[in-house]
């Protein structure tokens, strides 16, 4: 990532060049994360990339071996840690709920630890949070009998009980069916509209698409790149591309040699052409038609997060290898590009 600036105003989380090892395993190496206030920032990376360790470092549950972590301008590993944690709401990869307690008692426990007490205001906060995630009907039941979706919703309700300024969500849709996952993502979006800042980990590109204001691409415990998806697309996929479809194979053979075309990847009746400028596209189409091609579709190619992600991975390939952990590490490299959106 670019050289970070220190104490940048408007940053809720500012992790700079953080390192953390567990024995011989290097969980984080030169990790830099900056989370602007009021944004949804998504940590994207394969399993073992260090996303969970990053969350743990942000709350001060773990300290960095080297580097710094500032949250709300405070050091979470210092005496300020309690204040940092009080202002954060966390949903772990596993819901971390007490199965033998009822939903109500789980929320009550959290309310008390986060300083809401046991009075009417705590009761009101519990009811409000449970209602927001549609779990209020099950609060009297033991959590051990909840479905995975109910547990996730209860964990989400617990995370917002104390009205945190920063929400840290570690794979919040893990184990959910698609409908429940979509509902959770909608709720996350709603929470930022209420002024909260969200930092979310996921290995699902589809999940981050459309949700992330900012992304941080992680691998082997390091941040390969970070920023707004549009800015990253501009940086890593600067050339314009157009998808052209015809009625028959062979109609596009002339495409690579046409003026304005940098390169063309022809697959049967469809081609993806890299062009110098979108202004050149009408002339390119005219020439193809004049050559006898029967065009059925022309569409500019807008890169999605998956394209950006893999472009960054390709671009950073050599540096990833340099940063590769030793053989005894449990971290695993992500597979190369496929049509799947699961990393």
């Amino acid at each position: 990532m670019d050289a970070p600036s220190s104490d940048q105003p408007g940053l809720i989380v500012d992790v700079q060049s953080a390192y953390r090892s567990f024995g011989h395993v290097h969980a984080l190496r030169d990790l830099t994360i900056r989370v602007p206030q009021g944004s949804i920032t998504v940590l994207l990376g394969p399993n073992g990339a260090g996303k969970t360790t990053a969350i743990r470092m942000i709350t001060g549950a773990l300290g960095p071996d080297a580097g710094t972590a500032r949250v709300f301008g405070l050091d979470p590993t210092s005496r300020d840690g309690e204040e940092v944690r009080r202002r954060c709401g966390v949903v772990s990869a596993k819901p971390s709920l007490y199965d033998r307690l009822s939903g109500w008692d789980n929320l009550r426990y959290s309310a008390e630890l986060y300083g809401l007490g046991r009075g009417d205001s705590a009761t009101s906060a519990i009811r409000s949070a449970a209602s927001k995630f549609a779990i209020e009907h099950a609060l009297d039941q033991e959590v051990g009998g909840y479905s995975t979706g109910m547990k996730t919703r209860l964990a989400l309700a617990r995370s917002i009980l104390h009205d945190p300024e920063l929400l840290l969500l570690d794979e919040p849709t893990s184990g959910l069916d698609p409908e429940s996952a979509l509902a959770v993502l909608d709720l996350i979006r709603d929470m930022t509209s209420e002024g909260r800042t969200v930092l979310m980990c996921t290995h699902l590109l589809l999940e981050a698409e459309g949700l992330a204001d900012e992304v941080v691409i992680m691998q082997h415990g390091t941040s390969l790149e970070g920023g707004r998806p549009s800015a990253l697309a501009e940086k890593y996929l600067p050339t314009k591309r157009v998808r052209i479809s015809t009625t028959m194979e062979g109609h596009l053979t002339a495409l690579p040699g046409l003026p304005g075309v940098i390169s063309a990847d022809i697959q049967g009746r469809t081609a993806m052409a890299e062009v110098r400028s979108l202004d050149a596209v009408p002339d390119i189409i005219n020439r193809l038609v004049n050559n006898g091609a029967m065009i059925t579709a022309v569409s500019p190619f807008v890169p999605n997060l998956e394209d950006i992600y893999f472009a960054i991975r390709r671009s950073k390939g050599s540096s990833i290898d340099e940063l590769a952990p030793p053989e005894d590490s449990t971290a695993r490299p992500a597979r190369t590009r496929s049509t799947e959106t699961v990393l």
Partner: protein
Amino acid sequence: MPGLNTTQIWTVARTDLKQLAQARDFWFPMTLMGSFFFVIIPTILLFTITAIGDIAVVDQVAQTLDVLPAGAQDQIPEITSSGVEVTPAGRTAYALAVFLFAPVAVIVPLTISTAVGASTIVGERERGTGEFLAHSPAGAREIYLGKLLASLIPGYLTTVVGFGAYSIIVNTIVGPEVGGWFFPTAQWWLMIAWVLPPFLAICLSLVLRLSAKVRSTAAAQQASGLVSLPLIMIAYSQSTGVLFGAGYLPLVLGAVAWTAAVLFLARGVRSVTRSRLLGVAAGM
């Protein structure tokens, strides 16, 4: 300790106790054990001795009372307040009630509290709830002390309830033989209120340290057994000494135990860390 958040301590303790109350598979056998030691065995033994009268066997048992320390022998009444001589069966039953069952008051709470304490921290880790605690504003000291309380209360509560039941049984069965209700004696009060709590605290400080450091509940239970067994034996001998002794001995013994307990707790409080709650501390 300065700056302790007592609300957090009590919140952690109360939540653990609530979970324990839901765990019928835990408290049912523990209640059975308490009943066995405090009610069933004393009732059978004391009733048998007082009911069978002054036959040769009881006489023999009564003679063994001669080996008791002088301070203990002085406590055994020879005549009742109304001037009637106490029978050998009555004297034997009195000695058994006051001296023999003293270790019960030690074994039961230590066993129960050790069982609770061994799984309390490693259990958080195994269930994944350690992650919640690690991210919460609760301080590590508060978590430790909350867990300590949650382990100590079930054992001590069982003792208090069992002690009450035992007192009624002893007074009902042995009381008529020695001229009326006599139990608890001053030494028993001292043992329950002054000597037993620090021994419980010492034992739990070690058990909780183990619970924070080991990988699994099973390992914690095994290691805790090894740690608590010598402590139970020490507590056994000390409690007997308290009951036999007189004067300031029980007070001094209790004071020494309390000092040791404070030292052990001060060291034990450092055993709970957020990385241990997460299960990623070095050596785990």
